[in-house]
């Protein structure tokens, strides 16, 4: 299939602001779908609530648009009930790791075979740029006018600690790298997590003196270090940096596959 076949072009123009990173991420996702030969019938895109959560509006696959923060819990039920489905959860940083943090760590720990693509724009875009669990300390947001006093999450570290077998961080300023990591994550069996750093010029940018998406991209670039480079740096040097690339790629049996053994034991009367 051509990547355009996954897009509901009749719903264009996109709801997102000019300079928003979401469109680029959506582009990388549909190109990955095409590259991996995903069918519309066998693919389910589960979205949260937020600007990024509106991505399903523009997709022609099966979809599930539920509640803020719960995408991975819905996705868990969908995947476990029909393991043949390709299940992808799209979440914002507020969605995925702030209100939905508990579902996130447990979906990773449980190793449910879904791909989670989290767009991190460091704030709640949809509701007007309030701070989220990833907002960096000292930034200005519409609810931290005096400077944010909480530290932001390193969500890739969180995913790794929770046991996710595939963890990657990428950014919208490098579309080929983004697409490659998204494709790898989609293709990986087990819980795969891809964090995409993306600009929200309308809120996070404007509140922090970066009205143009390009300025935000530069800010991200300045904070970025590759996985290889990070290995040569001290923890102090890495403070406030974003390590870009594939951070974890290990093999581990996913929940659905393990459960087949539960079914086998139960059927042979091994337990009770």
């Amino acid at each position, binding site marked *: 299939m051509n990547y355009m076949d996954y897009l*509901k072009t009749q*719903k264009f123009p996109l709801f997102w602001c000019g300079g928003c990173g979401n469109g680029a991420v959506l582009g990388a996702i549909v190109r990955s779908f095409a590259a991996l030969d995903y069918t*519309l*019938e*066998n693919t*389910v895109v*589960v979205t949260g*609530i937020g600007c990024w959560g*509106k991505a*399903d*509006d523009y997709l*022609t*696959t*099966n*979809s*599930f*648009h*539920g*509640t803020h923060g*719960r995408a991975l*819990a*819905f*996705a*868990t*039920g*969908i*995947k*476990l*009930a*029909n393991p*043949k*489905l390709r299940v992808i959860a799209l979440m914002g940083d507020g969605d995925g790791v702030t209100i939905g943090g*508990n*579902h996130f*760590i*447990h979906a990773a720990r*449980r190793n449910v075979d879904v791909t989670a693509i989290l767009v991190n724009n460091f704030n709640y875009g949809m509701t007007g740029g309030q701070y989220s669990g990833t907002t960096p300390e000292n930034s200005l947001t519409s609810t931290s006018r005096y400077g944010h006093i909480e530290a932001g999450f390193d969500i890739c570290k969180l995913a790794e600690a929770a046991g996710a077998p595939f963890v990657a961080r990428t950014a919208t300023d490098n579309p080929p790298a983004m697409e490659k990591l998204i494709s790898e994550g989609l293709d990986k069996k087990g819980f795969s997590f891809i964090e995409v750093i993306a600009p929200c010029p309308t809120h996070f940018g404007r509140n922090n003196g970066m009205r143009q998406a390009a300025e935000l991209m530069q800010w991200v670039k300045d904070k970025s270090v590759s996985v290889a480079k990070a290995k040569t740096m001290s923890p102090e040097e890495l403070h406030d940096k974003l390590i870009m690339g594939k951070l974890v790629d290990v093999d581990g049996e996913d*929940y659905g596959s393990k*459960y087949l053994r*539960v*079914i086998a*034991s*139960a*059927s042979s009367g091994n*337990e*009770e």
Partner: protein
Amino acid sequence: MKQIIFGMGNEAITEGALAAGARFYAGYPITPSSEIAELSSIRLPRLGGMYVQMEDEIGSIAAIIGASVAGVKSYTATSGPGFSLMQENLGVAVMGEIPCVIINVQRSGPSTGLATKPAQGDVMQAQWGTHGDHGIIALSPSSVQECYDLTVRAFNLAERYRTPVILLADEIVGHMREGYQIRELLPHDIIDRKKPTCPPRDYQPYDFSGEEDEIAPLAPYGSEYITRINGSGHDESGDACGRPDNAAKFNSHYLNKFRINQKDIIETKSFDLDDAEYAIITFGCSVRSSKAALKLARQKGIKAGLLQLVTIWPFPKEQVREVCSRVKGVVVPEMNLGQILGEVSKTNPGQIPIVGVNRVDGQMITPYEILARLEEVAK
């Protein structure tokens, strides 16, 4: 072949779910519902089904909703605090029109309350706990046999009307043991959701036009149809839609579909009502003391009868109104401070005395308390 079993209400609920064809359970343990989780974790994999223990009740109801759209009949069980956590995504099942069964084995609240003590305080929460206008189906068992039968019925109603159904049990019926029959279910006793028959390109998961019962067919994920489920305002196709006329149409539909099908949904049971001058109207565990009170009242010469509300929501207005119209007084025993009493009173404003017998101390209402109220009303 009929099998008589001596067992607990929570076991009968689990057996009923399996008999109805449920094969997916997601939940978070809580007293007094945990036996349903434990038994489901043992029984489901034997049938090729799945049990998953989620991180909380928000995730539990989300997972069963997801599994249901993937085509597997799904359920969860909980009690007070967990039922509160489920309210957000209960709304997703309402608006997304997803069949699923939520078992609430009620305990004393609010908050953590008296964790091991019974109550019937979640009647209003079952209808109004999730925000916005909508209808819901709630059934309330009063015996172990009804735990089995009504669980089967809960799944059938969920499938037929594309809706969450709440089985409003309570600690007494959930933990009580008595004989019950695992009824043999014939194929026609089990209802499955309507599937689309149109060409795939024409399928719209929320298009109920042309459906007499206002229920649109639901194709599972992974079929030849594309299924778009949406808990935000959506049109027939499932696409987000904010048009006022569309919102008016669908928000009314979430109530209308129960109104137009209420004959099939509403179930009540009558005892000694034919010649009754006074009526007891009640539900769940309070039916048990009420039946004993009825006997005592008849022995004392009070012509009492009993209307058991098996379906709580949609509220059996017609049945209640009919009883109220031909008796001289009504007593409504319930283990809360008058939640059903209010609904009963609405059907008969100020015409006959309608009084409650209420307990919120975690103790069952006794037949003598009900009898005393009947005697007062009959004076």
